[in-house]
C-alpha cells in the first residue's frame, strides 16, 4: 500500500511538472482525457471505445484513452475515478454506473481543476456538462410513431420497461403513450411490464400477453434485451410480420429477428458517436470555449446540440443522435 501511495505521489508530481511545462503552449496539446465507462468488454462499450480511439487518432497530440471496471460495479468504477483524479488527468469523460455514488469524487475532481463531462446521467449534479444522445421524450415518441406506422394506427398494443424504477425507460414509454393518443384506434393494454433486461423472462411474459390478447398488434420495448425476448415469442408463434415490435436494441444481436420480420424496427444511439462527442466537448472546455446552444461538436448527431440547464451547476447537452433502423437499414450501423 505504501508503495502504491508513493507511486501515485510520484505520478502526481510528474504530472504536475508536466502541466507546469505545458502551460503557455497551445491549450489542448499534451492534455489527457480519460473516458471511464460503466463496464469494459461488453459490446456497447467496445463500440464506444472505437469512437474514443478514432478521436485519439484525430488528436494525436493529446493523450486519450478509455478505461472501465470489469464488472458492472459502481464501487469499482468509483475506485477507478479516484485513481484517475489522484493521477491528475486533465479531463474525465464518465458514463456513471450510479451517478449518486460518483458525486463526491467528481466534485473533488472539479475542485482540482479537472474538466468533468458525463454521459447518460442527466441527474448528475457535479459535472460541467452531461451529454445526452437525444431528448428522451422525442425518442419515446419516435419509437411509438414507428410502431403506429406499422400497426396502421389501430389495434391493441403494450409496453415493456426494464424496471418501473428505470427513469429513462418510463420516460420513453410515457412519451410513447402520449404519442399514441394521436391514434384513437390504438388501445393500450396491460402496460409497463417489467422485463429486468432478461430475454428469457421477457419471452415468457410476451407469450402470456399474446395468449391473453390474441388480437394484440404491437409491442414497444425499452431495455436492450427486450426485443430479443419478445421477438422470439412473436417468431415462435408464427406471427412475424403480423405483430409489430419496436424497441431499444442493438443491431448485431437483433439482426436475425429483423431479417425474419419478428422485430419491426430498433432504436438506439451509437455509443461510438457518444464517446466522440464527450471527448470533443471535453476538448472544447479545456480550450476555454463556451458551451452554447446550437454549437457543433463535429460528430454526426451532435452537429447542432441544444443546451439546457443541468441538474447542478453544469449544463445538459442534448444531441440528435437517435438512430432508428429496420430490416433494410440496420446493416449501415452494424455493431
Amino acid at each position, binding site marked *: 500500500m505504501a508503495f502504491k501511495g508513493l507511486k501515485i505521489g510520484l505520478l502526481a508530481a510528474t504530472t504536475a511538472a508536466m502541466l507546469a511545462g505545458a502551460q503557455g503552449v497551445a491549450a489542448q496539446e499534451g492534455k489527457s482525457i480519460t473516458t471511464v465507462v460503466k463496464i469494459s468488454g461488453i459490446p456497447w462499450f467496445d463500440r464506444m471505445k472505437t469512437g474514443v480511439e478514432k478521436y485519439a487518432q484525430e488528436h494525436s497530440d493529446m493523450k486519450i484513452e478509455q478505461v472501465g471496471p470489469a464488472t458492472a460495479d459502481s464501487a469499482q468504477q468509483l475506485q477507478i475515478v479516484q485513481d484517475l483524479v489522484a493521477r491528475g488527468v486533465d479531463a474525465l469523460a464518465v458514463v456513471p454506473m450510479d451517478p449518486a455514488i460518483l458525486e463526491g469524487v467528481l466534485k473533488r475532481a472539479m475542485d482540482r481543476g479537472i474538466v468533468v463531462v458525463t454521459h447518460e446521467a442527466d441527474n448528475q449534479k457535479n459535472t460541467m456538462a452531461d451529454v445526452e444522445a437525444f431528448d428522451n421524450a422525442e425518442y419515446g415518441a419516435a419509437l411509438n410513431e414507428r410502431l403506429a406506422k406499422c400497426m396502421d394506427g389501430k389495434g391493441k398494443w403494450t409496453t415493456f420497461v426494464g424496471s418501473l424504477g428505470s427513469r429513462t425507460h418510463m420516460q420513453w414509454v410515457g412519451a410513447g403513450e402520449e404519442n399514441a393518443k394521436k391514434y384513437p384506434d390504438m388501445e393500450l393494454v396491460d402496460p409497463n*411490464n*417489467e422485463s429486468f433486461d432478461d430475454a*428469457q423472462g421477457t419471452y415468457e411474459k410476451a407469450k402470456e400477453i399474446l395468449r391473453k390478447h*390474441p388480437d394484440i398488434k404491437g409491442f414497444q420495448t425499452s431495455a436492450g434485451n427486450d426485443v*430479443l425476448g419478445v421477438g422470439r415469442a412473436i417468431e415462435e*408463434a408464427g406471427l412475424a410480420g403480423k405483430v409489430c415490435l419496436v424497441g431499444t436494441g442493438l443491431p448485431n444481436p437483433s439482426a436475425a429477428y429483423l431479417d425474419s420480420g419478428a422485430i419491426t424496427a430498433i432504436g438506439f444511439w451509437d455509443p461510438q458517436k457518444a464517446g466522440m462527442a464527450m471527448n470533443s466537448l471535453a476538448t472544447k472546455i479545456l480550450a476555454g470555449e463556451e458551451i452554447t446552444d446550437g454549437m457543433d461538436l463535429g460528430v454526426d448527431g451532435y452537429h447542432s446540440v441544444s443546451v439546457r440547464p443541468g441538474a447542478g451547476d453544469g449544463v445538459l447537452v442534448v444531441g440528435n443522435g437517435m438512430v432508428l433502423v429496420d430490416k433494410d437499414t440496420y446493416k449501415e450501423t452494424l455493431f
Partner: protein
Amino acid sequence: MTMVQEMNDRSTPKRPEDKLTIWETLRRRPEMVTLTILVVICVAVSIINPNFLQPGSLIDMGRASVVTGLFALGVFAILAAGGIDVSFTAIAALTMYSLTKFVITVAPDLPMAAIIAIAVVAGALLGAVNGLLVHGLRVPSLIVTIGTQYLFRGILLAFVGTVWLMELPPQMTAFGKAALYQFQGANGVTVDLPAYFLIFPVVVGLAWFLFDRTLMGRAIFATGGNPEVAARLGYGQRVVHVFVFAFAGALAGLAGIIHVSATRMANPFDLVGTEIEVIAAVVLGGARITGGTGSVLGTVAGVLLITVVSNTLVLVGIPSTWQRLVVGAFILLAAAFFVRRKQKPKQRKAE
C-alpha cells in the same frame, strides 16, 4: 428417521372422507399442501380467465419449468443433505457460455449428445469443487457457495468473455427448436412442445429413484438429519458432500445448455440472480432449509407452483408491481403452514 417415517406413511390407510385424516396426510406429506395450493390457483385462474385452459398455455408452463426444475432438483439434493447452494446459477452460466464458445470456435461439428454430456460433466466437476471445499474447510456451505458464485462468475466474465453469442452452432439451434408436438391455436398462433421438455420428467424419474431407492439417497437424508449419527452409521460424509454438490452442478450444467438452446443465444450475464427463486421453489415443495426432509415430488410441485404464479399474473390482470408481493405472500403462507404441521396431532385436538 425421516426416511423411515415416510415409508411408514405409505402403509397407513387413508380415509379421505375423515377430516382429521386429511390433516394427518397433509401433515406428513407436505408436498400435498403445495399440490393443493397449485390446484386451487389453477382453478381460480381458469375462472378469472378461461384462456388459461388452452393447451397452449399449459405447454408454455411446462416449457418454462424446465430450467428452474433442473436447478431445483439439484438444490433439493443439497438441502436434503443439510447444506445450501447459491453458486449453481454461476456454474450453469460458466458451463453454458464456455461450452457454446468452444463449440463455435473449436468444434463446430460436435454432436448435440456430446455437447450435453460435456455440460453435465463440467457442471459436476465445478459442483464437486463446492463439495470438496465444504467438506474440507468445514465452513457453512452458504459461505463457500457465495464465494464460488463470485469465483465462477468472475472467471467467466474476466477470462472467457462478455459478448452475447447470437449465432449458435446449428445443432444447438435445432435442439432448441425441435418440437415434440405442434398445433395451431385459435388465433393462428403456433404453439409447440419442445423436445427438450422431455429431459425434465426423465431427470425427475432419476432423482426419485436416487432418493427413494438407493443407499445414497438414504445417506443424504441421514446426513441432513444428523451428520454425526450418519457418520457413525457408516455413511461417508465426504462422499455425500461431494456427491450432492456434484449432482447439483451436473444438473446446473444441463440446465445451462438447455437455456442456451431454448433462448437461441448465450448471454454470459444470464441466470445468475435467479437462485433465490429456485430455492423458494424447493422450500415451497416442503424441503426444510435445515435438511433431512423433503421429496422429489414436492420439489416438482414447488417448481410448478412458482412457474404458474409467475406466469399467470398478467393473465389474471395483476400488474407487474404486484407480482413479487404475490410470490412472497405464497412463500410465507406455505412456510406458516409447514410450521403448524410440526405440531403434534394431540395438541391440535386440545385446541
